[in-house]
């Protein structure tokens, strides 16, 4: 059973009105357990909408989404999803550790276990020393790492990430990518990752899904057969450049059409 299965999925916003937008259309996609799938495409191609459809934050207008063999709504109630947005979305009034504990608190985990789990997650993103800080005392990259720790705290089977590193500088971004891969190797989480950076998509993924816009459809799926574990050397690998070119050409074909 695949982790994610989408067939004929479409989403129309404001149907029937003069502001009707066909955001995504006819999406078929299978994501296996433990896969890392990046979705890339021009701005406004419906990448985020696709992620929100998977995460049950908006209902599809057509087709079916199946998550671990369940409906997205059921999967959300079962807490199968960890979500990371472009902004860290940390709660200002909670210190770092308490932010990581938030989902555990909502799920009714006991206090002792909660704080043990939060501490372990903060160690995982190497922010153990900052447990007692407020979010505003942290840099943007650190805040995003807290958000990742929070998303992983309840061990979701699927991580949905919407341009999580979009606001970071290039060096921080590469460090975060390496860290994300390390965490994924440790947890075995399935990841769906929306980005508009070609190197980011190629470096992180097992597959890259290329989308066109209006309506957003999948035009090409590129298998990323780079050796694992990936490292800084991967970025200098000849194969890495070949795959960059392949994805870039796929995107250019989309823009030209």
């Amino acid at each position: 059973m695949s982790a994610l299965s989408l067939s004929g999925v479409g989403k129309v916003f404001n149907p029937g009105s003069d502001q009707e937008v066909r955001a995504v259309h006819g999406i078929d996609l299978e994501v296996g357990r433990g896969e890392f799938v990046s979705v890339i495409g021009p701005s406004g191609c419906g990448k985020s909408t696709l992620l929100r459809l998977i995460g049950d934050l908006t209902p599809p207008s057509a087709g079916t989404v199946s998550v671990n063999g369940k409906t997205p709504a059921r999967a959300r109630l079962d807490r199968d999803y960890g979500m990371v947005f472009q902004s860290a979305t940390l709660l200002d009034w909670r210190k770092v550790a308490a932010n990581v504990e938030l989902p555990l608190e909502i799920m009714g985990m006991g206090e002792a276990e909660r704080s043990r789990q939060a501490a372990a997650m903060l160690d995982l993103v190497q922010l153990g020393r900052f447990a007692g800080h407020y979010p505003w005392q942290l840099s943007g990259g650190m805040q995003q790492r807290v958000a990742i720790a929070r998303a992983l705290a309840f061990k979701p089977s699927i991580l949905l990430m919407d341009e999580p590193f979009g606001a970071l500088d290039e060096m921080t971004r590469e460090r975060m990518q390496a860290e994300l891969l390390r965490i994924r190797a440790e947890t075995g989480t399935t990841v769906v990752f929306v980005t508009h950076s070609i190197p980011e998509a190629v470096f992180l993924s097992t597959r890259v899904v290329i989308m066109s816009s209006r309506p957003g459809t999948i035009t090409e799926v590129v298998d990323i057969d780079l050796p694992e574990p990936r490292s800084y050397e991967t970025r200098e690998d000849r194969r890495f450049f070949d795959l960059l070119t392949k994805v870039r050409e796929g995107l250019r074909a989309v823009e030209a059409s």
Partner: protein
Amino acid sequence: MLYHRLPAIGIFVGGLIVWEGVVRAFDIKGFILPAPTAIAATFSAETADLLTAGAGTFSTALAGLLLGGALAVLMALAAARWRFVRDGALPFAIAANSTPIIVLAPIANSWFGLRSPFASIFVVAILVFFPVMINLVRGLLSVEASEVELMESYAAGRLTTLWKLQLPNATPYLFSALKVAAALSLIGAIVKEFFGGSQDRLGQYITTKAGLLQFEEAWAAIVLASIFGIVLYNVVVLIERRVIPWHVSVRNV
């Protein structure tokens, strides 16, 4: 700390000296403006009467503030939770907040009786209710869409979202409103007392003394009312710093 307070202290002391100097130099009569020293002398001579009146007024203001504030919080929570409550109540709350509610003061006397403390508490409570409620509703509703989606992704219920996201988000709004309400509560209590009630209240004390041309006494009462107002405001500020140390308005202080 003290260094930053020096300018304010300087203006305060300087203002008193100028006031005293102007009154003496131009021989201004007491019924127009008594000198600070004259007010201070009256204050110490009349301390017992003033404190009795002040305590009565202050306690009704405080009772009204707590009652009105508590009702406003309950109403705001209901308005944030149920859309029909919000749609039904908010337009009227905003309308009421734009009217001079204090005009109810003389009418409250006929509703509750001249000597009833509830007349004062009622006026104060209704005066603080609307700004506190409106601000709190605004705070409860002004959460980022992404924060709401985060809670949804955790399958958090409406009450959990209200408790863990909306309410903490609204506390800075609540405290802004409470600071205004603290001042309003004393205004409400004293103005209500202008229209009658027990003699041993600041409002009655001021009108009576002014009627008898004893302006030093009236001014002493005004000073006391100001002190109460400042103390009440600062109590709210102290609580605010304890409750929301994370907020921008507090963390840089």
